[in-house]
C-alpha cells in the first residue's frame, strides 16, 4: 500500500547517504546543505524528494506537490517541505484518496513528525514516543497552514491533535484491516507511524454500548422464553450494572493492559510507542462488535462458537502485529510475555461470554 521507499525505518544519517542516489533527479541539492540543517530537515527533504520522484508518475494530482518540492530542495526551509509533505504522505499512507488536500490544514506538520517517528520506532524507544508524531518536530511552524500541535501546553487538548490525525476513510480502512486482515500482522507498518487514538476509544465505547444492549436483549429474550404464564412485560428489568461492568472491562482492557504492555516493552527496549500499542489493542476489539450482535441468539453453542472465533481472530491480530517489535527486542525472553498476552485476551473473551451472555439455564429471580 505504501509507495514510500523509506517506509521501513532507517535512521536519519542514512538519508544523507542515499541522497546522491536521488541526486541527479532531485535537482539542485547541495551536499553542503545537509550537515548544516537540523536533524529532521535533510531527512524530510530527502524523504520528500525520493517519495515524490518515485510516485510522481503514478499520481497525477501530485504534480503541484512535486513542483513545489523542487524549491524545497534548494531552500530546505521547513515551510516548503511541509507544503510538499501532504502530497508525499498522501501518496504514501492514504487509502484511495489521492486528493486529500482537504486534510492539508491538519496533516502537514504531524506527518513530518510521523516520518521522524519511523526512525524512533526502529532505533530507540524515544522519550517522546507516547505522543506519536509530536516528538520528531524540531522546526518552527512559520508559514505552516496549521499550528504545530506540540507548541501547546500539555493541558491544552490541541496538543494531542497529532494522535487524532485520521480521516473517515483511514479509520474505516484500519477497521477492516484489523478485523478482516488480521492474519497479515503488518498493522504497525500499515498505520505508518501515525497511530490514532480515535479508533481505540470509540471502538471501545461502541463495544460497551453494543454489549450492554445485546446482553440486555438476550436477557429479555431469555425471560420471555422462561417466564411463568400470564405475566406482563413489566416483569423484566434491565440490569444497569452490566453497563458499568462494560465500561470497566473494555476501557480497562485497552487502557490498562495496553499501558502495562507498553511499560514491559519499554523495559525490553522495544521501540513501540504507547499510542501504537493502544491503537493495536483498540482496533483488535472491533472484532467483538458484530459478535455481540450475533450473541443475542439464545443458542449456547452459537454463542460460544462466535465468541471463540472473535477471541481467536483478535488475539491473532494483536500477537502478529506486535510480534516483530517484541521479537527483535526480547527474543526468547519474550515467551512469558506472549503467554501473558494470550491469557489476558482469552480472559477477555471469557468474561464477555460469561458476564453478558450467560442466560441459558439460569432461573430468573
Amino acid at each position, binding site marked *: 500500500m505504501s509507495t514510500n521507499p523509506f517506509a521501513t525505518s532507517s535512521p536519519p544519517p542514512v538519508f544523507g547517504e542515499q541522497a546522491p542516489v536521488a541526486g541527479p533527479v532531485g535537482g539542485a541539492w547541495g551536499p553542503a546543505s545537509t550537515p548544516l540543517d537540523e536533524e529532521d530537515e535533510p531527512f524530510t527533504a530527502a524523504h520528500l524528494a525520493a517519495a515524490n520522484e518515485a510516485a510522481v508518475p503514478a499520481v497525477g494530482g501530485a504534480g503541484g506537490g512535486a513542483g513545489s518540492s523542487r524549491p524545497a530542495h534548494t531552500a530546505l526551509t521547513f515551510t516548503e517541505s511541509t507544503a510538499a509533505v501532504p502530497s508525499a504522505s498522501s501518496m504514501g499512507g492514504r487509502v484511495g484518496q489521492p486528493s486529500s488536500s482537504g486534510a492539508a490544514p491538519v496533516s502537514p506538520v504531524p506527518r513530518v513528525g510521523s516520518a521522524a517517528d519511523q526512525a524512533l520506532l526502529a532505533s530507540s524507544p524515544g522519550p517522546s514516543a507516547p505522543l506519536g508524531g509530536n516528538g520528531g518536530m524540531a522546526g518552527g511552524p512559520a508559514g505552516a497552514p496549521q499550528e504545530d500541535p506540540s507548541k501547546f501546553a500539555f493541558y491544552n487538548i490541541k496538543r494531542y*491533535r497529532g494522535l487524532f490525525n485520521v480521516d473517515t476513510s483511514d479509520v474505516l480502512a484500519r477497521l477492516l484491516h484489523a478485523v478482516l486482515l488480521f492474519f497479515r500482522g503488518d498493522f504497525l507498518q500499515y498505520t505508518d507511524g501515525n497511530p490514532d487514538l480515535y479508533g481505540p476509544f470509540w471502538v471501545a*465505547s461502541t463495544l460497551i454500548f453494543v454489549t450492554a444492549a445485546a446482553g440486555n436483549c438476550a436477557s429479555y429474550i431469555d425471560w420471555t422464553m422462561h417466564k411463568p404464564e400470564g405475566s406482563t412485560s413489566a416483569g423484566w428489568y434491565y440490569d444497569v450494572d452490566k453497563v458499568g461492568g462494560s465500561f470497566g472491562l473494555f476501557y480497562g482492557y485497552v487502557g490498562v493492559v495496553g499501558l502495562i504492555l507498553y511499560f514491559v516493552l519499554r523495559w525490553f527496549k522495544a521501540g513501540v510507542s504507547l499510542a501504537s500499542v493502544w491503537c493495536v489493542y483498540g482496533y483488535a476489539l472491533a472484532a467483538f462488535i458484530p459478535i455481540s450482535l450475533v450473541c443475542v441468539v439464545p443458542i449456547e453453542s452459537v454463542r460460544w462458537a462466535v465468541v471463540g472465533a472473535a477471541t481467536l481472530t483478535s488475539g491473532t491480530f494483536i500477537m502478529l502485529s506486535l510480534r516483530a517489535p517484541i521479537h527483535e527486542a526480547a527474543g526468547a525472553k519474550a515467551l512469558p510475555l506472549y503467554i501473558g498476552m494470550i491469557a489476558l485476551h482469552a480472559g477477555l473473551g471469557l468474561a464477555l461470554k460469561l458476564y453478558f451472555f450467560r442466560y441459558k439455564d439460569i432461573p430468573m429471580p
Partner: protein
Amino acid sequence: MSFLGGNAAGFGASGRRDDVERLFTADPSVPVSTGAGAAAAPGGGYAPPGSALSPPLGYGGEASSMNTLDEPVWETVKRDLRRIYKNLVMVVFPFKDRSQQSAALRNWDLWGPMIFVLGLAITLSLGAATASKTFSLVFALVSVGAIILTVNVVLLGGTIGFFQSLCLLGYCLFPLDVAAIVCVTTDILLVRWILVPIMVVWSSWASIPFISGAVPANRRALAIYPMVLLYTALGWLALIT
C-alpha cells in the same frame, strides 16, 4: 446587535485569539434576542430603554442595571423560562433555516440543557428497577458524553465553542425527553419502537449540521458518529424502560 456581530467575527477568526478565550467565544445567553420573529416580544421587554451598556444578564450578574436585581423572583424565573423556550424552538426546531439556530447558539445558556438532562434522568429512573443507578448513569452519560464529544471535535482538528457545543447537545435532548416520558407512561411496545427511533433521528438531525460544520470535510463522519451513538444509547435506555 453590534456586540453579537463582533462575536460572530470573533468566532470566525481562527488562530488569532488566545486558545482559552476561543473555547468560550460567545457570551452567555442574554435577554436581548438575536433572532427575528419569535424573539421580538421577549427581547423588547427587558432591554433597558436606550441603554448603550450591555443588556442585563440573566441572573443578577452585572451591576450595570438595577432592573433585574430588583425585580421579583417570579419575574426572573419567567424570563428564564421564556428564554429557554425560545432557545429550544430555535435549536431543536430549525425548520426554516439554520441561521436562527446559530444565533441561538451564539447566546448559549446551560439552564436549558440542565433542565433537559435532569428531566431525562428523572424520567428514566422512574421506570427502572434501581432508580439511583439509572439516574447516575443517565446524568453521567449525558454530561460526560457531551464534554467528550466536544473534545473529540477539537481533537479531530475542528473549531468549536465549548459551551456552545454543550448547549446544543443539551437542547437536542428535548426529543429524547419526550420519548422517555412516553415510554415510561405506556407499555405498548409498538409505540415505543416507533417513537424512539423517530426521536433519535430528530435529535441527530437538529445537531448534525452544527457539529459537522466545525470539522474538516473528510472527518465529518468521525465527528458525527459519536453523537449518534450517544443519542442512540439514550434512546435505547428509554426504549427498555
